């Protein structure tokens, strides 16, 4: 996905970059707690969980910074008008940022699902790998597919615990899933792009709220 493929409202230029960067910072905060969990238990699944949030945060930070760079250059140099070198460089940085984000976040979502799986089921995961390689044009659908298992598990967790923290996590994963689902339809309307990014930031803010509720 880049600026040419999707409909982005002009006033939203750069706001999406800020949303990505804020989401990344919250993601790093989650991974800090996930590392503490791994440090206490030493369980492999907790290590995968920690790694998934580190990767996701790195992906979001990469796309946030690369898209911010694109917007800054866009506002500085305007629309393409013969300054091919600058436009090419900016387009390269933007595309590169998104590709890094695609690869890292798919790995992160797969690892997240992996960390939730029962030990025996983990052996089945390599079956999904060939699907990855053909799936890049449909990155958002693939991300939603990978995230759906985590969403399902978070719903089950909320159903059994019925507390605010598990509700916030369920809401967070569902909103991040919705973000990917909506992004698949951004070529139809500008509003969808805004709604998708609001869904993303609300998802991560939901995680932040949960973290701030943990006993000091």
């Amino acid at each position, binding site marked *: 996905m880049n600026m040419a493929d999707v409909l982005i409202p002009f006033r939203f230029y750069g706001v999406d970059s800020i949303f990505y960067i804020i989401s990344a910072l919250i993601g790093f905060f989650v991974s800090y707690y996930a590392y503490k969990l791994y440090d206490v238990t030493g369980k492999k699944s907790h290590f995968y969980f920690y790694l998934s949030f580190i990767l996701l945060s790195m992906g979001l930070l990469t796309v946030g910074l690369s898209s911010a760079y694109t917007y800054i250059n866009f506002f500085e140099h305007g629309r393409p008008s013969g300054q091919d070198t600058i436009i090419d460089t900016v387009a390269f940085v933007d595309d590169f940022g998104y590709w890094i984000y695609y690869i890292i976040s798919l790995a992160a979502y797969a690892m997240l699902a992996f960390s939730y799986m029962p030990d025996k089921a983990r052996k089945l995961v390599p079956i999904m790998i060939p699907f990855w390689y053909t799936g890049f044009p449909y990155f958002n659908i693939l991300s939603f597919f990978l995230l759906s298992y985590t969403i399902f598990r978070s719903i089950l*967790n909320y159903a059994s615990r019925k507390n605010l*923290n598990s509700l916030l996590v369920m809401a967070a994963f569902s909103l991040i899933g919705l973000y990917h689902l909506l992004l698949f339809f951004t070529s139809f309307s500008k509003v969808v792009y805004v709604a998708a990014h609001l869904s993303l930031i609300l998802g991560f803010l939901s995680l932040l709220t949960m973290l701030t509720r943990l006993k000091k």
Partner: protein
Amino acid sequence: MNARRSKLHIFVDILRLINRKNGRAKPTHILYGANLSHIRLKKYLAQLLDNGFIQQVSEGGHSYYIITQKGYEFMHEFKKVEQFSDAFGISV
């Protein structure tokens, strides 16, 4: 249930039990409260002592176990981690 998990939970259960007794408990109180055999309790208490989470003191001819600062910090950390994992639905 995985062995490491149960060990961790037993550690925390023992520490919480001592904490409920105002941070100081006799071995017999721990034995009844922790629902462990004498042999297993001795093993876990030795590990808690080795890790510096508890300390053995003698007072009035009686032996007590008290929670150290490190033990309180471990309990505090475990509580946060437990809440975090509960929220995500991943077992500790």
